[in-house]
């Protein structure tokens, strides 16, 4: 058989394009060791240590596993939807991938949907593993089905807020700066962003600021939810505002090359 070079242009069906794009992104993510470290190894280490956390830090009243597990789930969302996404997108811009795909039949929104789909798949796997390990180590989530539905909504909103933040950074800064900022923000929020340590362990003034951060809102929201108390609607509002503001920023400021 010989190569038929006659022109026969045409775009693949949009669903096919988006599926291939998501699969490609997923393969690249899973091939990247640093991403796996960030998305699985660090949260796993923390959740295993978490059971003994009373010897390291005082997380406040209650069983350590019940306090730390929701925070680890929030951390997993942060690492995938913010840090991983920002770094990957930053380097895609640097290497002209986004530019090249911009000249392909795949529309830009299709590119974004592909990215989001890949992140959602990674998060589902990541959260399933962490929830399983948490339960095995003695985590007792309260609040029944309502709590799981609330948690699902919080995670979706958190993913949207962190994802939009990540894209905003990746779409406006150089790749090296994106790498630095994405990792720095990850570490800062992990240590002092109200993600894992409950907000009532912070000084009052700090708490008022942390409540307004997406990390504080997601971490605290998940802790309240699984404590059986029901999440404060304020957490939802904070996450929605971050998602909308950063989303608008992305649509205005994202530079495709």
């Amino acid at each position, binding site marked *: 058989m010989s*190569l038929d*070079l006659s022109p026969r*242009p*045409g775009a*693949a069906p949009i669903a096919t394009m988006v599926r291939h794009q998501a699969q490609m992104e997923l393969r*690249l993510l899973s091939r990247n060791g640093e991403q796996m470290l960030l998305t699985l190894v660090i949260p796993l280490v923390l959740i295993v240590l978490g059971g003994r956390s009373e010897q390291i830090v005082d997380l406040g009243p209650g069983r350590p596993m019940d306090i730390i597990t929701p925070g680890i789930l929030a951390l997993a969302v942060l690492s995938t939807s913010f840090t991983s996404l920002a770094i990957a997108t930053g380097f*895609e811009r640097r290497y002209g991938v986004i530019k090249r795909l911009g000249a*392909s*039949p*795949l529309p830009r929104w299709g590119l974004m949907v592909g990215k989001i789909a890949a992140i959602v798949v990674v998060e589902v796997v990541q959260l399933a593993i962490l929830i399983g390990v948490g339960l095995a180590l003695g985590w007792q989530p309260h609040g029944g089905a309502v709590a799981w539905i609330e948690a699902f909504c919080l995670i979706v909103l958190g993913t949207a807020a962190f994802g939009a933040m990540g894209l905003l950074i990746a779409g406006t800064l150089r790749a090296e700066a994106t790498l630095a900022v994405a990792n720095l923000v990850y570490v800062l929020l992990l240590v002092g962003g109200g993600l894992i340590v409950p907000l009532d362990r912070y000084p009052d003034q700090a708490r008022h600021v942390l409540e307004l951060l997406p990390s504080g809102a997601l971490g605290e929201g998940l802790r309240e939810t699984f404590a059986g108390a029901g999440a404060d609607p304020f957490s939802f509002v904070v996450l929605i505002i971050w998602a909308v503001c950063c989303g608008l920023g992305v649509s205005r400021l994202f530079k495709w090359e």
Partner: protein
Amino acid sequence: MSQPAVEVTDLVMRYGDTVAVDGLSLTVEPGTVTAILGPNGAGKTTTIETCEGFRAPQAGSVRALGLDPIVDAKRLRPRVGVMLQSGGAWSGSRAHEMLRHMASLHAYPLDVDLLIERLGMQSFGRTPYRRLSGGQQQRLSLAMAIVGRPDLLFLDEPTAGLDPQARRATWDLIGELKGHGVTTVLTTHFMDEAETLSDHVHIVDGGRLIASGTVAELAVVGAEDSIRFTARAGLDVVALMAALPVDTKVVEVAAGSYVVNGAVDPALVAAVTAWLAGQGVLTDTMHVRRQTLEDRFLDLTGRTLR
């Protein structure tokens, strides 16, 4: 006349205070290979990328296949193949994987295995993009440009970094695509590439079109052709000139070294050798030198480095 495949009209593009393209107009006829030549910074890439829809014209207009590259992007993109000057693939993606991914975005892509064979890409199929050599990256990038079977191809320096074999293979492929009716617009620094491949050449400098035509037309304008030969010193150049057409000049530039300047054609060569034969003179060497596209390019764009 049929609608041009590409039509750039009075295009102006600036980056800050730098004017990259300064009122450029050019057309590309369908089914042809057209080369855009110019020194570094002449505005070639900016012009091509505006036609590809990467940026909007700041003044003037561009049309590709009769469509506005930004307004009609959805209709235009599947019909256009693009090879960027560099990059365009994930650093961690493997060569074949990247090509198959690009093919999967099209409805009727080329047979990927045959394309891989055709471009000699079998040996580095599983190599991540970041570890490919420059020439391998170029071949992958070309394959990605044509895999969707476009009507119109934009190739930005398609053979930069290729070894001679890969260059020939690329030229053959571009020629074959033309045989199938594909229109190709390419930028290049290689004059031999433009001479070999293109039906039409646009020379661009300082963001403006400064010359345009077929290779033959461009090379001939203002031609300073010459015949150089060596023979014994002291030949009667005045007598030789008398035997040659008017406007032909003969000078003995060094002892035994002669230059004939004029419109060089077979008749002139015959006249020179006939006169020498009549004198019983045997030439040691004889060179016919016609102006090349490169001469013309350097005349037009100057010899300063940019």
